[in-house]
């Protein structure tokens, strides 16, 4: 499962932690939302980084109390046609001011890259079928956009009203 970020395959140092497995104080682990809520005090004391996978149906506001202790939010696409995660990412970035990593997982395709980046995603867990070169190309396929107020992709020009990215 190559992880792609900025058009390159990057190392993935995160471990998805089974709910039964005790919470380690070190290392970078991804927790379920339920566990994060249950063990929030222990999470706050960790020296390693903590990530969380937000279910597709969850309200991103559920994370608001935890964002100070979180370095990664994983949003999973059950199908690439299921667009809820775009709005989840948008709410995390714009309303909740989250500045850590947002990662797309599940059925994630290069053809979505530009949309995802503009909504605030940084990294993509892929099935490896689409090479990084295709991801780079897809992210730059359309270099102009009409929507103001979304994250600029490198080189993207936004219709007047905001400074081009």
């Amino acid at each position, binding site marked *: 499962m190559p992880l792609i970020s900025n058009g390159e395959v990057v190392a993935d140092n995160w471990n998805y932690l089974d709910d039964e497995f005790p919470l380690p104080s070190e290392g970078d682990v991804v927790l379920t939302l339920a566990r994060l809520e249950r063990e929030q005090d222990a999470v706050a004391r960790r020296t390693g980084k903590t990530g969380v996978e937000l279910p597709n149906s969850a309200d991103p506001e559920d994370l608001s109390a935890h964002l100070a202790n979180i370095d990664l939010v994983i949003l999973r696409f059950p199908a690439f046609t299921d667009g809820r995660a775009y709005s989840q990412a948008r709410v995390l970035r714009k309303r909740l001011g989250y500045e850590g990593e947002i990662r797309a997982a599940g059925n994630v395709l290069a053809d979505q890259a530009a949309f995802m980046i*503009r909504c605030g995603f940084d990294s993509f867990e892929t099935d490896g079928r689409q090479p990084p070169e295709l991801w780079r190309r897809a992210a730059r396929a359309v270099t102009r956009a009409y929507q*103001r107020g979304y994250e600029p992709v490198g080189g993207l020009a936004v219709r007047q009203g905001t400074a081009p990215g």
Partner: protein
Amino acid sequence: MYRYDEFDAAFVRERVDQFREQVGRRLDGSLTEEEFRPLRLMNGLYLQLHAYMLRVAIPYGTLSSRQMRQLAGIADDFDKGYGHFTTRQNIQFNWPKLVDVPAILDRLAEVEMHAIQTSGNCIRNVTADHWAGVAADEIEDPRPYAELLRQWSSLHPEFSFLPRKFKIAVTGAPKDRAAVAYHDIGLRIVRNEKGETGFEVLVGGGMGRTPMIAVTVRNWVTKADLLPYLDAIMRVYNLHGRRDNNYKARVKILVHELGAEEFRRQVDAEFAQIDRSEIGVPPAELERIATYFAPPSYENADASDLDYHRALKTDASFAAWAERSVAPHRVDGHAIVNISLKPVGGIPGDATSAQMRAVADIAERWSKDEIRVSHEQNLVLPQVRKRDLFAVWQALTSAGLATPNIGLVSDIISCPGLDYCSLATARSIPIAQKISNRLGDARRQKEIGDIKIKISGCINACGHHHAGHIGILGLEKRGEEYYQITLGGSGDEKASIGEIIGPGFSSETVTDAVETIVDTYIGLRKDGENFLDAYRRVGAAPFKEAVYAAH
């Protein structure tokens, strides 16, 4: 008319190149059909019964002569010499090959057109009143806002994978010719006590399996807040619209299940948190767009043109056509000409490439180069001087485009149905043709008067049957097509959903049933009362009685 600047042109070019590359990956097998499907749908490409179908956007129904000629050329070079104008102000080509589609998109881009988001679960081609800018009853031209929404919705990073398709319509007149209450979002330009114009926002209308009339979620949204408010609606829908059942995924179901009050509360809560200055359109940008829609210069023309009046008196055929086809223009001495694409016994909405070229020539010469496409599958010449009406009529007659039946019983809306569509359960075009032939005699049509018959070949209701005064829905049972009839639907400012009158009819008997309904109306109407008014007065009972006693 709006003209692309360098930004718009480059955007569409890049989108074509992107799609060409996606088609290439499909053809070399690196994209599966399942992966390609949503990508091609976002560019208006369907796989139909016999071939691909490309649906081209005609934003808010506005075309120039040059664009119309380009469509004619595409029809000749990539289709079988005709195109089909749809109920959403689009045109469909039924026979393109996948490998040719990027070349067709290139041709469209040459004339500032595209097929972006004419299908798929995204915000579709934005529609508007086909008389926009020229209607005598208009408060304000809706086209600048429709264009703004076209731009805002194009490749929207957040709202391109919605639970289901999403349709927006805008009207600037109190008389609703855009069926806004049947849209996911309907926008009505209204004037407040201070004399300012803004928007009444309706949400949750739609046809399909569960027809619903949209509810007003806000009586007043300012122009500056239009995009932020729509952003709030879209986010609530994107996060909470149902994705477990395709038939329950439209925003109308969310509005219905939450209740209008709760839906409004959620949208307002979202709206309150949005940085409006970031999302909203800067006034200068709105101004830039609006400039393109400034009225053309009209020469002083006599409101009661004498040549026109003489021709009406001396030529009965011209007078019959003018009575149905000519509508009041906001400027004295001018008229709106409606062109019927419903020859008696013909295929509703179809036009040959020769007819497209003829319309382009006529528009160039006599309508300030402007053409409109209506959601009733007809065309409009919005800028004709009264003194030119006779010449326009003669030219239309030569092109086979002067059927004097606008608004009459043979001006039928019909989807392509089982003759083309892979979703259809029954044929609809042949039913439209039969009804048109049966009732299409000129004198009889005139006697029947204003009536809207709308036919869909399946529950998806592309033929808008729910909004037909007489609606016909084609279904299938045990391998047999049968047709359900609804009465009393309307898509105007007093929108209503037609009611099923009883058991369906076979393809042989449905025409008889429609004829019986029409004759029953003639028997019971009071002076000057059209079909819909009569139906609303007497209800379904007399019609049911007549139809089911007779069959």
